[in-house]
Structure formats: structure tokens, C-alpha cells
């Protein structure tokens, strides 16, 4: 059966109204099932948390009820205080992430292509990558002061390497047989790069982008724990300090939400750009 015949038979099966309704119900049924199997456990954990907290099985001073957290979240957001923190945090990690993207992708493409450049930079790269960004934070503070610059820089530093390394490996893992094929058709070096190497490296670059985005948020918290008076990471520390435990959890929830959101955005972009890599779905 050809693809088209398959298509046509699907259209035919869905032809009558009742068949269409059945199809709709079946589809929404499986969609609901899929949703439940994906988020069921999460909901159960939250429900258990709520029950445990209200029933007093856990200390509500340490684990306030989900309701209390949500209400702290609402007050913070509607009052605008948490929104300010979100904006400041996004600006810090966003600037750092953008800087890493702008540097790491071109550099990685170059290093993956040109052996001599890779050989020259690799030892330095390995050394830097093995040194924890957090360990270097005091050094950055010393050099750049306790303000925005050192915060952005430590995030930038930590996000740079995952992206750089996955870009390099993406370029190197492009099938050399495809490159040879392009050469046989008379493609210049630049054309081979533009039409074969670059698109071939995109999936791996996306892996790097997702790793880096996660790292950016992780480092954000750490950087905001020292010498900050705004930001979600600051809010986590500050609320704990002032014993506003619901607010602390609200800030943690926001962080988790930002992480999920950035990951979804990247996955979405990846699906759009790399439709071919899961073309069978």
C-alpha cells in the first residue's frame, strides 16, 4: 500500500458523521489518557503534600500547604513584587545565555571544521570545562565587582561550555559520506558547510541549547545568593531568612516553571527546525 492509499483509506474510514464522532471521542480519550499518564503522578504528589500539610503529618511551618504557597504566589505576582524579581532574573540569565549562544555556536562550528583551531583550543577548553563555574565565582567577583557584571558573567561562563562542546561534536559527527557526496556534485567548501554540515549539526546544537538553558537557571540561583537584592534566587534565600516559607516555595515553583518553559520553547523550536529527524511521526 502506498502512502497515498493509506491516506485515502483514513479519509474514507472517517467519512460518515458517526464514524467521525467516534474517531473524535477515541482521539480525545487517548489524549486524556496520555495527559493523565504524563502528569498523574505529579498531581498525586501535590495532592499528598496538601493532605499531609493540612492533616499535620508534616510540619506546616517547613512544608506549608499547597494552598498557602499558591496564595503567596498570587499575592507576589498580583502585587508586582515577584514580577520584578522574574524580570531581573530573566534579564541576567537571558543576557548570559544570549552571550553564550553568540560566542559558542560560531566558535564551535569553526572548531568542528578546522582541525588546527580545535587542537590549539582544546586543552584550554578541557581545563576550563572541568573547573566548576561556582568555584570561579569569587574570582569573577574579584575582577568584576559584586554587581550585575559578575553575576551575568558566571552564568555566561557555565552556559558556554555545554553549548560549545555539543556544537563541536555536532559538526564532527556529520556523516563524512554525505560530505563526499556533496563534493562529488561539485559543492565548494562553503556550500558543503552551508548545505550539509550546518543542517547536520542542528540537532546536536539543540541538545547544547537545552543543556545551557538549564545551566543558566541553575547558576542564576547561585549567583543571586551573593550580593543581590532582587531576583528569584534572591527571593528564595530572602524569604527563607525572613521565615516566609510559603513565599520561598512560591519562588522555587517559579524557578521550576521557568525551567520547564524554556525547555518547552526550545523543544518546540527544535521540532519546527528538525522536522526531518522525526518525520515518521
Amino acid at each position: 500500500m502506498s502512502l497515498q492509499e493509506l491516506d485515502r483509506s483514513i479519509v474514507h474510514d472517517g467519512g460518515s458523521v458517526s464514524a467521525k464522532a467516534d474517531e473524535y471521542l477515541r482521539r480525545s480519550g487517548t489524549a486524556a489518557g496520555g495527559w493523565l499518564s504524563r502528569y498523574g503522578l505529579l498531581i498525586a504528589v501535590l495532592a499528598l503534600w496538601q493532605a499531609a500539610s493540612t492533616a499535620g503529618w508534616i510540619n506546616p511551618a517547613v512544608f506549608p500547604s499547597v494552598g498557602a504557597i499558591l496564595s503567596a504566589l498570587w499575592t507576589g505576582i498580583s502585587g508586582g513584587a515577584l514580577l520584578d524579581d522574574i524580570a531581573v532574573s530573566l534579564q541576567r540569565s537571558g543576557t548570559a545565555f544570549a552571550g553564550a549562544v553568540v560566542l559558542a555556536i560560531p566558535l564551535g562550528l569553526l572548531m568542528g571544521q578546522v582541525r588546527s583551531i580545535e587542537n590549539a583550543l582544546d586543552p584550554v577548553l578541557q581545563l576550563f570545562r572541568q573547573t566548576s563555574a561556582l568555584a570561579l565565582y569569587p574570582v569573577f567577583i574579584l575582577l568584576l565587582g559584586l554587581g550585575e557584571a559578575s553575576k551575568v558573567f558566571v552564568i555566561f561562563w557555565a552556559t558556554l561550555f555545554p553549548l560549545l562542546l555539543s556544537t563541536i561534536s555536532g559538526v564532527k559527527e556529520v556523516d563524512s559520506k554525505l560530505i563526499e557526496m556533496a563534493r562529488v556534485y561539485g559543492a565548494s567548501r562553503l556550500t558543503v558547510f552551508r548545505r550539509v554540515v550546518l543542517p547536520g549539526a542542528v540537532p546536536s546544537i539543540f541538545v547544547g541549547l537545552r543543556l545551557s538553558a538549564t545551566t543558566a537557571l541553575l547558576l542564576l540561583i547561585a549567583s543571586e545568593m551573593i550580593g543581590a537584592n532582587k531576583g528569584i534566587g534572591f527571593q528564595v534565600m530572602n524569604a527563607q531568612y525572613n521565615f516566609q516559607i510559603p513565599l520561598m516555595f512560591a519562588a522555587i515553583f517559579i524557578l521550576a516553571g521557568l525551567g520547564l518553559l524554556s525547555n518547552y520553547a526550545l523543544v518546540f523550536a527544535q521540532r519546527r527546525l528538525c522536522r526531518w529527524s522525526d518525520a515518521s511521526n
Partner: protein
Amino acid sequence: MAEVRSLRRGEVALRDLSKSFRINGRPLSVLRNLNLDIRSGECLAIVGASGSGKTTLLRVLAGLETADSGRALIDGRPVTGVGRERAVIFQEPRLLPWLTVLGNVAFGLEVRGEDPGRADERARHYIALVGLADFQDAYPKQLSGGMAQRVGLARALTVQPEILLLDEPLGALDAMTKLTMQQELERIWREENVTMVLVTHDLEEALYLADRVLILPKQKDASPRLIGIDLPRPRDRSEARFVRYRQELLREFGLH
């Protein structure tokens, strides 16, 4: 296009061509003083045991390997690298997974600087020729092995080469698809009037398609043999003369 085709030549000449590789520091002679003339529009099959240098010879012709000594000439000019008058079909289809069938087939023309609209138009023609008109928007992942191989064939034909170099293009296909593809190759070879150099493991395939069969020996001191296949086309595999040719080839390999 017609006048271009009548001017097209696609003659190949090998003059004392030798090629060796170094494996762990020791030289390995693969091709030794090979002399051969392939006529314009001829279909030459190359057979030989594994490791006899079939792929190496094809890669020298493609301009992907350089000979140690001697020369390979295309239309009288020495081969110094890849060239526009040649197209190669490798054992694997080598399709770009991020391009559709249409994109892959037009790829060869596009990298040669052809206007994308014209490239697509010509690509569509050859996609239809290999029987994939319904699949031009499919991605390589969605194709069967035989279909992918036909996309590779269409891509090579789209650049309208004088010489088509094929390295076991049907080696990975199942028996039925293979027979169909052999028929298709024969038809395309006739219609496109292209010189074809076909490396194959399959003696029947060589006999079905080739005007002459070059047998590369395994021992490098033995000389290659060339057998002309004087049979009307399209050939009938069960015909007595076909069977006799096959026995002759088998004898060349020491089999009866």
C-alpha cells in the same frame, strides 16, 4: 537539451593506471598497469572478488582518489578531481535526511549554481522517471531502501552526466526490487544515452546490463579479463546464450 546530448561524449580511457595503498606501513598494490577504453554510451560492468579494487577504480574515475602512476582520461582530459560530466551513485543512497525527495534530487543541480526553480523542474522530471512522483515531498526516513536508492539515481540523472559511475547500487536490495531496478536502470541507460560504469557483485546483473564485463583478478600478477556480451536487449536471463555467458563468467572465478 537534445543538442547538448548529441554533443555529449563520455569516453573513458585508462593508461597504465596503478594504485596502491599503505596498510600499517606496508604497501598494498590494488590496481596494476590497467589499460582500458570505455566507449561513449557504453555500459561496462566491473566484477571481481571482494578486495580486488573495484571501488578503488571507480573512485579514481570519480576523482576521489588519485592514481600513483598512469592516467585516467575522460574525453581525452586527465582526471584531476571531481567533475561536472560525472555523477556517482554509491552503495548507500547518501540522501540528506533534512531534505525531501524533491530537495535531495534537486541538490546536485543547486550546488552547481542552477536556479532553484529550474532545478526543481528538472528534478521533478527525473523523480517521475524513477517512478517516485507521488513521493516527492516525503523525507528519506519515510522511504524503503529501494525507493531511497532510486532517489539517489534520480539525483545523479538530474545533473545529466556524460558518465554515470555506480558502485554496487543495488547491492542492499531484496531480490525482487533488484530485478525491477535492473530493468529500470537498463531503460534509463538507453533513454539517457549515458556512459555507465557499474561495479557489481552480481554476475547476472552484469550480464543483464553490460556491453562488456571487466573482471578484476584477485592476484595482482594476473591480468584483468574483458568479456564482450553480444546479446540483444532487453536480455532474457533464461535464454541459452545468457546462461552460457554466465557459465563462462563463473569459470573465470574458478566455479562451475
